[in-house]
């Protein structure tokens, strides 16, 4: 056992996203921004999302965190770019559900793209929050009414 147990958690694609994150930048004129803190580790993630005609035209994130949270944020931005707001919200729900062990049909998972790999996080209960924090930030950004800040 030992570290080989972690091969599933730290698959190459996950390490690649963590080391070379996609869309890791702020979008100054985004239509919606959200900052979420993870109080267990002190990490912060800022998601900025630009919605036009109910579709995510552009999305970016900034912040620091562990491999899992960074990879998850990177994959999340790739997965939802170009989707409608409803599609993105459904994906966020699928991801959160999978992370806590609820089953979804394969077509829902396919929607998630690379991000579905991280649903293996449910084997590591202490790390579920790391994977879900960016999806939570996305959800809050898409649903928020004003300039609220949300703590997770």
């Amino acid at each position, binding site marked *: 056992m*030992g570290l080989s147990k972690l091969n599933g958690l730290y698959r190459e694609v996950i390490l690649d996203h963590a080391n070379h994150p996609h869309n890791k930048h702020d979008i100054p004129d985004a239509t919606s921004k959200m900052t979420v803190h993870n109080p267990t*580790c002190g990490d912060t993630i800022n998601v900025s999302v630009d919605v036009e005609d109910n579709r995510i035209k552009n999305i970016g994130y900034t912040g620091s965190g562990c491999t899992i949270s960074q990879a998850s944020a990177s994959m999340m931005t790739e997965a939802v770019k170009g989707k409608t707001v409803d599609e993105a919200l459904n994906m966020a729900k699928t991801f959160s559900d999978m992370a806590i062990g609820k089953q979804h049909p394969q077509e829902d998972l396919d929607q998630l793209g690379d991000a579905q790999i991280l649903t293996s996080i449910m084997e590591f209960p202490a790390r579920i929050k790391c994977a879900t924090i960016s999806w939570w930030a996305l959800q809050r950004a898409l649903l928020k009414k004003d300039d609220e800040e949300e703590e997770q």
Partner: protein
Amino acid sequence: MANNINDLTADFPVLDQQVNGERLAYLDNAATAQKPKQVVDTLVHFYEHDNANVHRGVHTLAERATAEYEEARKKVQHFINAADNKEIIFTKGCTDGLNLVASTYGEQNIHEGDEIVISIMEHHSNLIPWQQLAIKKHAVLKYIELTPEGTLDMDDAKKKITDKTKIVAVAHASNVLGVVNPIKELAKLAHEHGAVFVGDGAQSVPHMPVDVQDLDVDFYAFSGHKMMGPTGIGVLYGKADLLRQMPPYQYGGEMISSVHRDRTEFADIPFKFEAGTQSIAGAIALGTAVDYLEKVGMENVVAKEQELVDYVLPKLEALPYVTVYGPQDPKKHTGVIAFNMDNLHPHDVATALDAEGVAVRAGHHCAQPLMEALGVSATSRASFYFYNTKEDADQLIKAIKATKEFFNGGTI
């Protein structure tokens, strides 16, 4: 009790197990200590033979439970050398004790413009109660900063503590930096300026001899569970004259001498501060933990932990990709060792070490202002207790090396 301090596994069955297919090396003692079977047996024995509420019944079980509960209070009194057992208040834990002082003594004695002095290395439990009190009372909260070495800056303490200071509250030992603070000197400074001194003993009482009279602290709080007692029990020591002047913390049963329709006379200390049914079994089992520590001998606890630090700290510091926080000299470092690995987030490190059987804490250790002062968002932390062994230390070092290899030099 097992006689050999280097092999206590017979007393700690929890340590004798495998996690993730590896031998468990439990190095999260600063979060909570494991319980020897003597402590667990006390809990079982109490519930199986003596369970009753205390100070209320005349029946035999109530008398037995009361006698055991009060005996535990005396054990704690002697353990920290308090002058009187009435000065020992049972609480839920260290946090509860510190909140008690802030919301009674603090509420009564802090006024607009007064100063409360704490240190930048405080755990949130010895920070937020004072911060919130200061906000409420329009008082000033001041922080004693660190030296470049990561110890408390006593020159800064002398500047920060002034005649306006009413309360000085500082940890006896840090839960991150692995330093022991000169609280006897701080208490003296506080007294010279007419302030009281509150000590946070969460990380000190389990690990070193503590004499509250010698330290001349006015209040001193600690938790049972970090010294091998159960969770949900803690102790607040306070000087009797101060405790008597303070208003009650909570109202209810057991804390009264007589109640009328329009007024209440409160009980004497310590009962004035023990409203409601306390963790009776917890207090009695804490007494057993005290017995256990006294049998081992606190000087032996200190020596064993120093031996482990002397052994492991240089090995950690020799790894070029590891940064240890606080003093680098093992002689100035307790068994609490916070560290980071280059380019790796502490959460990833802790998951990887866990896969190798090594239990450490990762995060901000409830000390976010300290993390900010250190310029990090989080650290990993290995924390040793006297029942740990060199084998645990070797396993930690080996697991850190394996972690480095697993991530192959690099991720976030």
